[in-house]
């Protein structure tokens, strides 16, 4: 795969995503919270349009083409749900409901000048760090139990 082209495409894709989040006003936590309290259901159109487009692309493109433009393979998103991931999803929702921020909009909103979101970004980084460290502890415990 052509590395510079790959990174350029990633940058353009991220830019479109970030601009779209800004245009959809989803970078304002207040807008997300007013969606969750049913005061403005507009975000349904954000999710619907974004998911709808990609449902077509993800489902059809691999049938039309063998490979992505830069070669390699169309990647699946390996995910099977279990009790732990459901707990994670539930906690994510509680956090989302408290502050109205998602990972993507936090980044785009920062670019659009909402520097308050730096606090949320620091929190998200801290949460991701905590998750990684706890995974290690959990795996170490499991290994120790298997060995004993």
């Amino acid at each position, binding site marked *: 795969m052509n590395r510079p082209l790959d990174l350029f495409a990633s940058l353009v894709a*991220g830019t*479109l995503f970030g601009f779209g989040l800004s245009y959809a006003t989803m*970078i304002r936590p207040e807008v997300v919270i007013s969606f969750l309290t049913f005061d403005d259901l*507009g975000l349904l159109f954000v999710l619907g349009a974004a*998911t709808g487009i990609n449902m077509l692309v993800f489902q059809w493109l691999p049938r039309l083409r063998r490979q992505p433009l830069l070669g390699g393979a169309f990647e699946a*998103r390996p995910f099977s749900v279990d009790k732990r991931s459901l707990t994670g*999803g*539930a906690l994510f929702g509680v956090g989302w*409901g408290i502050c109205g921020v998602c990972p993507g909009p936090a980044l785009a909103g920062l670019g659009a000048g909402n520097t308050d979101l730096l606090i949320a970004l620091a929190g998200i980084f801290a*949460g991701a760090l905590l998750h990684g460290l706890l995974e290690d502890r959990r795996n170490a415990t499991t290994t120790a139990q298997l060995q004993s």
Partner: protein
Amino acid sequence: MVDSLFPNGIAPYLTGGILIGLGVALLYVVTGRQGGASTFFSSSWSWLLNTPFFRQPSLRGSRQWRLVYAAGFVLGGLIYLGLGLPQAPSHMPAWKLALGGVLIGYGARLGGGCTSGHGICGMASLNRGSMLIVLTFMTTAIITAWVMKALGVGA
């Protein structure tokens, strides 16, 4: 009825959603990758930490493009600002952003994704697990927002 459910109209939401969708689609068409946002927050730690979790190939191998992809998010916001498009300042108390942020970061990673990973990519892949996670976080988020509103600490 329509006015009360959509006081700000639907045009900005629909346009924004289409642009977001095109971004995710572009990444898939060109590289074959499904671009969620939250893994970036784990893969970035792999630049600094050498613990087993952050050493895993899926994070180290993707950290470069994820960093560039995330930089694109910021750039997209910057372009929006540069074009002088409407952006009202938000007034969210710091404690909410901090507490919410930690829960979002931890929860999204334990849950295997966020609103873009499960919400857009997972559902577009027709992954049932992702749909279940989306249903879960939508439910807890709505309950939390209503509780916060009832307590008088909502937005």
